[in-house]
């Protein structure tokens, strides 16, 4: 696949949240406000891109060489967790402003399945390093897009007249489902 095709595919067609259903927890958890969802989006973009580059090298350099592909999941989790901790330490020292901006979202991402999903799918698709980077960039932009769209709708929903039984999470889940159906419209674009 060409790089533009990868970007369009991951942002719209195979949007990780709305088409692949990964990362639903932050999608529902931090989409209450536009600000927080944008912060989460930036943090995820940062971590996903960085972690898929590192996992790419670990896969090619260690796991493939020794024939230990079955250790992929656990090794990748280890890498992501350590990486997030490391990034947090470094940011705290070098760029306190960025650290404050990302705030609580950085440690939260450790267990975000989008990060693991992107890293594993990059390997499964057999991408080279450049495509890996663009694929992870596109996926996290797609994640951010879904999050921000959802936040925009939920801010409006807050002042809408919703039946008592549907208030809160039920209406959010229905909205998410409808958004997912809407994103099906992109199918066949790539």
């Amino acid at each position, binding site marked *: 696949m060409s790089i533009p095709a990868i970007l369009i595919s991951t942002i719209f067609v195979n949007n990780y949240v709305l088409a692949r259903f990964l990362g639903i927890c932050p999608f529902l958890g931090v989409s209450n406000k536009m600000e927080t969802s944008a912060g989460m989006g930036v943090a995820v973009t940062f971590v996903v891109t960085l972690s898929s580059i590192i996992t790419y090298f670990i896969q090619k350099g260690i796991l493939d060489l020794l024939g230990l592909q079955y250790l992929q999941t656990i090794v990748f989790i280890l890498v992501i967790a350590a990486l997030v901790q490391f990034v947090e*330490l470094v940011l705290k020292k070098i760029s306190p402003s960025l650290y404050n901006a990302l705030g609580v979202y950085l440690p939260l991402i450790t267990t975000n399945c989008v990060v693991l999903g992107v890293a594993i799918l990059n390997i499964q698709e057999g991408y080279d390093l450049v495509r890996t980077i663009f694929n992870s960039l596109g996926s996290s932009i797609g994640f951010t897009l879904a999050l921000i769209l959802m936040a925009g709708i939920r801010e409006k929903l807050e002042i809408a007249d919703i039946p008592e039984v549907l208030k809160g999470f039920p209406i959010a889940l229905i909205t998410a489902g409808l958004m997912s159906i809407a994103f099906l419209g992109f199918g066949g674009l790539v």
Partner: protein
Amino acid sequence: MTDILNPIVVLGGLGLGFGVILSIASNIFAVEVDPKIEEVRAVLPGANCGACGFPGCDGLAKAIAEGKAPVNACNVGGNPVAEKIADIMGVNAANVDRKVATVLCQGDCNKAKEKYIYHGIKDCRAANILQGGSKACSFGCLGCGTCKEVCQFDAIEMRDGVAFVLKDKCTACMKCIEVCPKKIIELVPYENEYVVKCMSKDPGKEVRSKCGIGCIGCQICVKNCPSDAFTFENFLAKIDYEKCINCGVCAEKCPTKAIYGDTAKEAAV
């Protein structure tokens, strides 16, 4: 044998490697934390309400320890907390002003005219989308009680379709100020008894036609104030709360009674 050893060595090695890197990194990138931050943080209420404008109590503790925020920055904790923080920081806690939210509108059902009859969702933010609400005055309180709903301290009452803050219950958490679509709720020092309760920037004649208790911009208060505490802008008088001496001349002279005097408090005394 290598089938078992390899994965153990790889996984163990990676884990050990990451552990070593992280522990080295935490030494290299260690950030010294001011012990005062911890002490101040322990005194703060810990509700993380964000009323101070900092990201949670941790953020405020840091700002106070660095001298970027005053010791009385926590409105919710009020005086007792401010005193303790002042002890830690080694400064005097004098002049700790308590502030309370105040709704700057008195245009209730009897005094303010309506543009249309609103039957929609009972939420000011929704009502405001429709032509800026049903009140003829585009600056006035919409009276749907959204501020009352967000208030966690039961400090807001609806009186004849206008929100009213009960001074003694208000903790200045700013929740109502954030939610009000008209932006007519402001923090006013607790000690100040007189407030211009009108936000209308319309000329006097228009105010008169829309509301019986609005500021018409006659400037009588400005002329009569003994302490020069009034500023006048956009057809609207405003009290400088630091200069005000609570004499009450303005409330007496105000022809429309747009200047509100906290008479309930006097009666209690």
